[in-house]
């Protein structure tokens, strides 16, 4: 087996007297989907931001193995290197699609922008890729030139996914990707995400408080409480046979519809 794609080593982050992340270490392989679950305030979003290089830790390191095979510490890279990584190798799907999209640019422009950032200047090819991706995320082609402001919440989220995946990234970070959506659009979106992860062989780090979403999308899970990982392992094993008292509480508190 090749070296892991992403390695977190002893990550610490404090906000004043509150430890948001305490000594967190794990590895993520290529094509692996990891869910980080916990209640609000457990530190899961802080951890996601540390892993994605959006936030610097107080101590610890995050190593990412680039396409050249070399693993490098995110926090020792230059700002330009880190930005190049985000454009070429990574995707970031926010809960609020407006944060991940440019709301004053057309849907096609939103998708094409990522390709242009990687140096593609061929208008026809960019538009072709944008059309293809719009169809792939099940948005009618007729909406290609519309602004995402005219889109529903579910469509915006699909568009954000298309914008992230058009450059075929190796790793995608997702923060509550179905969080703010109506239940009626969540299921189809989850199925779409699940299919894309499998087809593209994406590695994913997913933050969610919804154990059902974690079960559907991830192979492995980290359960966080007050900044610490209290349990980790195979997703369905952690959810069906939880060992830690806190995980048992979390799992037994979910209402089965």
């Amino acid at each position, binding site marked *: 087996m090749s070296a892991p794609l992403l390695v977190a080593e002893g990550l610490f982050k404090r906000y004043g007297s509150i430890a948001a992340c305490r000594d967190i270490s794990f590895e993520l392989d290529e094509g692996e989907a990891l869910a980080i679950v916990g209640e609000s305030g457990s530190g899961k979003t802080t951890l996601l931001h540390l892993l994605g290089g959006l936030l610097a830790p107080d101590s610890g390191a995050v190593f990412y193995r680039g396409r050249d095979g070399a693993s490098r510490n995110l926090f020792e890279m230059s700002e330009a290197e880190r930005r190049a990584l985000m454009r070429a190798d990574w995707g970031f799907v926010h809960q609020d699609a407006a944060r991940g999209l440019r709301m004053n640019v057309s849907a096609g422009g939103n998708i094409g922008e990522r390709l242009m950032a990687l140096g593609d200047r061929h208008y026809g090819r960019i538009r072709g890729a944008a059309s293809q991706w719009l169809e792939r995320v099940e948005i009618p082609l007729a909406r290609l030139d519309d602004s995402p402001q005219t889109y529903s919440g579910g469509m915006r989220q699909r568009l954000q996914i298309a914008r992230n995946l058009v450059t075929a990234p190796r790793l995608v970070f997702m923060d509550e990707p179905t969080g703010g959506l109506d239940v009626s659009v969540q299921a189809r979106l989850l199925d779409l995400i699940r299919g894309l992860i499998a087809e593209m062989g994406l590695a994913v780090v997913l933050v969610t408080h919804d154990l059902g979403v974690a079960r559907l999308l991830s192979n492995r899970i980290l359960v966080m409480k007050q900044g610490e990982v209290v349990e980790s392992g195979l997703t369905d094993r952690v959810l069906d046979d939880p060992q830690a*008292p806190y995980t048992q509480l979390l799992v037994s508190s979910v209402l089965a519809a």
Partner: protein
Amino acid sequence: MTPRPSDLLVVEALDKAFILHLHGGKRLPVVTNVSFSVARGECVVLGGPSGVGKSSILKIVFGNYRSECGSIRLADGERFLDIARASAREIVDARRRLMGYVSQFLRVIPRVSTFDIVAAAARDAGLEASAAKDRASSLLTRLNLPERLWSLPPATFSGGEQQRVNIARGFAGEHRLLILDEPTASLDATNREAVVELIAERRAGGVGFLAIFHDDDVRARVADRVLDVSKFSEREGA
């Protein structure tokens, strides 16, 4: 015990108990000292009264439940992978290539069509898109699921129809070991027959089965051996 080349699965000295932290750390014993094996092409059926731990054994073998101790060696070509000690990613890989599981109840993403559910399982097991579709059509046809239902999600189907979708999904891959938890419980005679035939076919190809069947007729026809789980049970009065 060293596994023989004909062995597909060798389970030794397995223990399982639940520690209920929300109930004062009460220990709920399930099974102890479970040992058995399944050879290539063999069908081993777990027997014994309800609550004795049959389903738990299936879940431990599939990696869904943790075992306290013991080993679960699953053949992977020439070598054996110990599911009791395997990492999460090794188990994910084993489930894709080596072992499949048909649960008692169908659990799927809402609003996904029956056909897509089965085809996705074939894709997950490594089949190409068109081969996966062919496999889905062929399984759903053999299990007598009317074609007009294929484009619908199974949520509103009858118990028997849902169970057939579940079986089709479980048989969609190329797994060497199939774990079945009462897959025929709500099927009529015709459909039980279809399942018995599917099992016989796969066995002829060397696939091994570890199963629970409450139906005496099906059990008598497919089981090489019935293993009484009572002897592993730690529960009093089970």
